[in-house]
């Protein structure tokens, strides 16, 4: 089985330029590919090797490189291997092509990535807000959004004044280090 897979991967290497295939473990294969070549790759994988199950689409915000990394995890029920196809797109404007026509589950992940990272997928069936319908801040998963800071700006926390604390303060004790101080 693995042999068949290797030959397949070789053929893929032949058909797509600058694609890097790397076998991580027996069942995990990492493929790095250019953004424009990815749909073709997925199409080939789906068509040739039965990688019909899209396990997930993960988005990573590489803010320093001004890039989003999109990782498509596809699984083949036949070869029983999981290929993670990595590709990078520029952070601005953060637009990419939907693969909904290849994999219907993509609809959810693309919608999710859109509202969490602000990446727009052209051709995705529904780019409306889903989880964050009542959130009108920036896409929260972007690295520049500091959740903790946001919380401290928008929420107050409970200010406990138990008796034992008051007594301690009367005796010159009291809170010396709050959790916020060490963060």
């Amino acid at each position, binding site marked *: 089985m693995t042999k068949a897979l290797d030959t397949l991967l070789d053929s893929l290497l032949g058909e797509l330029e600058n694609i890097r295939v790397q076998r991580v473990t027996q069942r995990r294969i990492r493929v790095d590919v250019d953004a424009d070549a990815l749909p073709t790759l997925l199409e080939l994988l789906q068509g040739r090797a039965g990688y019909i199950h899209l396990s997930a689409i993960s988005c990573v915000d590489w803010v320093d490189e001004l890039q989003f990394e999109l990782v498509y995890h596809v699984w083949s029920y036949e070869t029983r291997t999981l290929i993670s196809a990595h590709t990078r797109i520029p952070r601005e404007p953060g637009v990419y092509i939907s693969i909904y026509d290849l994999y219907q589950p993509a609809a959810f992940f693309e919608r999710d990535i859109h509202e969490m990272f602000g990446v727009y997928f052209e051709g995705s069936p529904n780019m409306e807000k889903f989880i964050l319908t009542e959130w009108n801040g920036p896409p929260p998963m972007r690295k520049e959004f500091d959740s903790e800071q946001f919380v401290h700006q928008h929420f107050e926390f*409970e200010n*406990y*004044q*138990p*008796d*034992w*604390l008051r007594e*301690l303060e009367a*005796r*010159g*004790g*009291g*809170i*010396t*280090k*709050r*959790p*916020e101080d*060490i*963060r």
Partner: protein
Amino acid sequence: MTDIDYEDRGSILKPLRALGFLGRPAVTVPLKPRDASENYLGFHVNDWSLCVGCSTCQKVCDNAAISMVKIPELPEDPVKGLRNERPAIDYGRCCWCGLCVDICPTGSLALSREYVHHCREEELDSYFILPDPNGMHQETYPKGWAKTEDADLLDLQRQAMDELPCVQRVDTFTEIVEGYTPDQALIEASRCVQCGMCHDACPTHMQAPEYIRAIWEGDLEQAVREIYRTNPLARVCGRVCTHRCETACSIGRRGEPVAIRWLKRYAMDSLPDDRIREIVLELKPNYLSSRKIAIVGSGPAGLTAAFDLAKQGIDVTIYEAQQEAGGMMRYGIPEYRLPYDHLDADIAAISALGVNIIYNTRIGIDISMADLQHNHDAVVLAIGLQNGRSTRIPGSDHRQVVSAVELLRWQSAGQFLDIPQRAVVIGGGNVAMDAARTLARRQQQEYAQVNVTVCALEDLEHMLADPEEIDEAREEGVTILDSRGPCECVVDEYDKLVALKTYGVISVFDDEGRFAPRYNQDNAQFHDADLIIEAIGQMSDTNILGEELTERLEWYRGRLKVTPDGRTSEPWLWAAGDMVNGPDVVHAIADGHRVASSIDTCLVAEETPA
């Protein structure tokens, strides 16, 4: 595949089967809280007698639920590593994951099997609790989730330090301790929980957590920077410091403390000297003050004071009687513990800041205190304790009876030429061990055999020297006799020293605890000796001050009387180091800092017209 036939229509009598359930026990439990399981994640309990307030639980808490609360009644002792702080937990945040329990260095924190707490809105303060052994509602429940051997999140084992085996070290003065490899240092540094106990315990308050962190992150230059913030003699301290920090380390509560001293040494050794000098030169000021300060003695105190003052752009001159700087660090500590090149590197870094050291200049002979006072705005007296005390037993004034400091000074200066076949050391402290082990090495080199006897007043348990010093000395062939009181240096008719006569010791201190040894005259021994070394303590050589100054200064029990920040009764004269508060490198360094800052403030005060 399923084995059940869900087409089965059943029969009209089927419900009767349910009657069978009448026979089954009811699953309902009574309407009161059941006892929780043995390692239940319930409410916190904290054994205040074990807890040291290291706040590690606060660091690991993922919900920022733990605040440290100061409790004035509890003991606080930085030297012992005790803070009077205890964790208080916000049950509006806690998720009872028990990480605080698994990481607690002392094992004081635990979760009990208590789990029922509810309150009205106005009583919400009861959600912020200060765990003590009594449980949340002052009812003691059995412990639930508590520390276990296999579940400890901390590494209690210290990285072993490689040392030269006895056979290799006994006849040479090369350094015994080999120092950490990068991997060892990394692992050792990662053990630190950044509690800062070491920082509090250190006399000069070194930034130990910071530089250990830097080592862990692989940023050695940052580590060196952190070290130089408080200690200009880090190569020395990395080797011979008395490491109060490690006695205070919170990891040491249940395991071996983090090897803070060795980590400091690793940081200093792993950077090239010139790079370290560059880092030191970052501290060099870009301005020059008009002030001039003279420092007498280039020991740790003098050098530290000079370092601090030079950072202020002040023109500092150190007057050193010997031909090389370092004081006791050079002439008191044998080379196998502190190689000279490391000392030189430290001193070079300091003088790179513009500190000027004048060698072979003895105050009172080559230059008088009066001249110093005249030429400088202030003078710092850091002459240390250069003279050994004498036992004053009969014959102790014989030329073949020398003090340990003298002997060590000869050795360092290369003037220790005729090696005695048989030597006896009087004293049981580290200095005695240094002298004995130095002698042993020289004897090995000369005669390929060791004949050194140490006669200590105390018994083995109460001997002042570090245990490892005693063991290593024994390994190297030194005979160590405890509870022997010296009574006479026996001299033959040709006025040649033959032996030391000692009595057995009955008691060292009297009932009031004063030093008054009582001997058993019947138990007398003779230890043959060509040379007797007295290592029973040092005193400072205050003759250099001159009668007139000595008259003016205030004294207390033969020691110069100084304010806490080192001022003498003379407005221009400060005193620092061993001569003020006993022999210890790191204390001397702390002293140097104190004096320097005191001088700095005084000078500034003078500059700004009142």
